[in-house]
């Protein structure tokens, strides 16, 4: 049994929700399983919908593997994209991401 890691989701109002999860699956799945608001994930992780968009806190952003071209292209055209935008279904949870903090956007579109 692996040690659990903590992922913090911050909503647009600044309210934080920290969840404890096994270091497997994705950030999106951690949100869905723990019923965290602000992440819709309609396509179930297929990198089709961009409704699991998050802003990764800057100190963590550089630590993540590079996005693949599909993710980059989806994110590039999102209305509320920022330099630290990622799709949470593409961020694999590993032990090194213990403490990761992401913020959900005002709206998933």
């Amino acid at each position, binding site marked *: 049994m692996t040690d659990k890691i903590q992922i913090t989701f911050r909503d647009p109002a600044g309210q934080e929700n920290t969840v404890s999860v096994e270091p497997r699956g994705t950030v999106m799945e951690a949100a869905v399983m723990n019923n*965290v608001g602000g992440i819709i994930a*309609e*396509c179930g992780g*297929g990198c089709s919908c*961009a409704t699991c968009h998050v802003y990764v806190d800057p100190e963590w952003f550089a630590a993540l593997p590079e996005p693949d071209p*599909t993710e980059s292209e*989806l994110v590039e*055209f999102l209305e509320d994209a920022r330099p630290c935008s990622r799709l949470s279904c593409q961020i694999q949870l590993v032990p090194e991401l213990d403490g990761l903090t992401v913020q959900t956007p005002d*709206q998933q579109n």
Partner: protein
Amino acid sequence: MSAERRHVIVVGAGHGGTAVTALLRQHGYAGRITLLSAESDQPYHRPPLSKPSTVATAATPELLREAEFYEIQNIDLRLGTTVQGFDAKTSSVTLDSGDVLAYDALVLATGARAITLPLPGADSAQVRTLRNLGDARWLNSRLCPGAHLVIVGAGYIGLEVAALARSRGAEVTIVEGSSRALGRSAGSDMAQWLTEYHRSRGTTIILDAVVEGFVEGQNGELAAVRINGEELACDLAVIGVGARARTELAVEAGLLCEGGVVVDDHGRTSARSVYAIGDMTMRPLAPFSGLFRLESIPSATEQARQVVADFLNLPAPAPEIPWFWSDQFDLKLQIAGLPALGQKAVVRGDLGAARFAVYHLDDADHVVAVEAMNSPGDFIAGKRFIADATVVHPDLLGDALIPLKTLMNRAIA
């Protein structure tokens, strides 16, 4: 009355129904939630059933939520539970077991049923529709090199199943009654391109085909399908000719139905405290006029948000642009808006490289839909064009040398 005493009953544990239960808890609703599912499997993702990425689907479906989710969230999920009917006057649901449950709000989310064909031999065990996990298990266990699968209908189910079957080495023939693929959903440019693509991957596609029936062999097994007066040998057949709203419960309870349960933009039906969402509904779709029956997860989950907001007296969510997706072979197709509402089509990108988009414009050059093939940027940009009712000159849109960002900025300015 204390809010904690209220009881929400959701009938149907697909994407929409399950989303309602999760959203109620997300928004702090502390009353009772009962989620009724006629299926015996834990609620699962339906799109993978027709896609090859999940060969394991047959045995282990991709669950919408892990099994513990419902317990942790205090959602009373009852599998294998069929509803006999409901009475909007007494606000009660009667289960097949005879149990009667009282509700404060009832959410109907029973989806759609695949249309079957009343043809000779169509009741063969080797002729099926694809709608649920049982169907997918059946199909997955029979797709192998050498098997010949006939698919009736060149819609999304037909094309996705064809790609799945080809990836498993089966021979595939699609027979389509009309003169083109995707007649109900895609524009003709995209349909034509996809038809050619599937042919290049070894699928035979017969258009304008009249399917007359299925022929059994000596041992009662499926032997052939009769098309245009000729017999085509096959081992399996999948019927993919669309779906109809499952409105029986609503009709019996006297709700207004017109090819689907009629709802407003809060998911409310004609009966007090009864909501309906998803494939079973005829719904308004701002900014378009009229009612639409969409078969898509985004539509169902949008309506789930509408219902939860209405029930909990929260601000109504902003209207969303309808969208759809389909994965076939290495193709990622994303569609926003309704291509059928367009008056002209503009192709942008490289058809030969399987990376392009077809934009659909109305007669005033507003973008009303985009079909993006392996081009996620066009999908997101197109969605924004539609939402903003952007006017784009077709010549500029069709010139892939002009970056999308330039078009967006120009349109805004």
